[in-house]
């Protein structure tokens, strides 16, 4: 169950609902700051996913 809480937390951060609508400055590496945040959260999702698949998926269980 804890594993899934991790996914939920990352998904909460991976969609930019928590920024003021229409804002975009400053730019970070060319991205509007909120887009950069989305990208970083998505990267966290990929890394967490790989971790879960390789180390928390045991036989038929993910724990």
């Amino acid at each position, binding site marked *: 169950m804890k594993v899934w809480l991790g996914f939920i937390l990352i998904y909460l951060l*991976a969609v930019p609902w928590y920024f003021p609508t229409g804002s975009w400055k400053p730019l970070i590496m060319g991205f509007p700051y909120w887009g950069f945040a989305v990208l970083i959260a998505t990267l966290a999702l990929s890394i967490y996913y790989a971790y879960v698949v390789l180390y928390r998926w045991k036989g038929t269980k993910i724990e």
Partner: protein
Amino acid sequence: MAKQLTIGTGALIFMIGYIAFSIVIGYIAGKKKLSNTAEDFFLGSRTLGTLVLFFTLYGTQYSGNTIIGYPGKAYRVGFIWLMSVTFMVSVLVGYLLFAPRLRAYADKYKYITPSDFIYHRTESKAVTFLASIFMLYAMSNYVLAQFMAMGHIFEGISGGRIPYAAGVIFFAIIMFILIHLGGFRGVAWTDTVQGITMLFGLLLIIGIAFSKAGSLSEITMKIAQMKPKLVGAPPGKVIATWYSVLILVGIGAAIYPQAIQRIYAARDLKTLKKSLALMAFMPYITTLVVFFVGIICIPMFAGLGKIKSDEVFPMLLSKVMGESAWGYALVVIVLSAVGAAIMSTADSVVLTLASIYAVDVHKKFINPNLTQEELARVGKIANAIILAILTYIAITPKLTLWRLTEIKFEFLIQVAPAILLGVRAKKLNNTGLFLGMLVGGVMAAGMMLSGYSKFHGIHAGLWGLLVNFIIVLIFNAISKPKEDEIRKFEERFEKVLAEVRE
């Protein structure tokens, strides 16, 4: 593809040769077959290693539309299209909802199709039939889009020397020979070659794009001046759609039968895990690259309407092609990568369609006494017939203009309760499953066809799925648990879980 991308005869022959080359791979793969059984033809005898499994997952999940369609989307919606990077990871997260258990059951009971599991779990012909129909429909539309894209590309790059219909027919013939000779092994091996070509092409694309457009900061500043909405943080309604897409694609694409069959076909669990973990990083060199292409085109080709904006990628390539011989060569390679993306999706889906016909329709409803060898033969005949039907639809404009060809995930995702609940719930009421699937599918398709592809920002398919799940849960709650059903689940499935080792 735009007419301005017309290439010379030499380059055209190169591309045709590249596509036809897959027949050679199919032939070699056919020589390596372990038996004449359906299991070998449809799943390569479940012996796929990490590299080939990874590339066939990659080639199958990322279609021609990812490369040619997505730049237009990024062009229209701007930085919001970063969602395409997230939803491609979500597909993999979707697998985790059912793959660990389903993989164990499939290993034990030698399932070939997703419906094999559904039938074994529910013992209901009605549920299995409806699920198979929904899956067939979604996949046929998916592969139809690949066929049409191939026809348009041939027509575009040959400047009309290869008419659209001839391109589609040529492509269908190549697919037929490849699948007929190589079966699943042939498909997976060609996917590996295609996957490598795609990656190479994508690297070139990113190089081309930034050499033409300067730094991302400059581009973003320009877009902010022209169309501030495309760089601004999105409003609430878009946020709802964003989550809706993540769920729709995450669950929908994960239960695509060709995806599930790749879970079945892995040599062992370790192989599957390694391939999936690697796949989690592919969006950054695929959908993110394609996103950049669309973004770069916003200031470069300002003011295009919806239909024209779908052409931004060919427009960019055309610009590069006209500049030098080197640019021309680059474009031919990129076009081959697009062809590779289309082929590696189409071959996998067509073979899966053939397996669903042979195993889920022919064996379950027409002739249950077929041997493994006969089943493989039925699969080969089904391959030919399916390709003929798809070709006919693709070259008949009356049929392809029909909105019904747009319905994919709306139907497909309705199969989710049967799989997601099926792998773990001891009690599952078949009437609820059937009605939920039917009502959810009809509702989602009805919304789509009446112009409500989204309602309050949420996709029609998800509203259908919500109603579907509610129906399933209500029927489950009001029906009495039958002791023998629960015992059967424990003996048939829970026992397997205990047996599995790494």
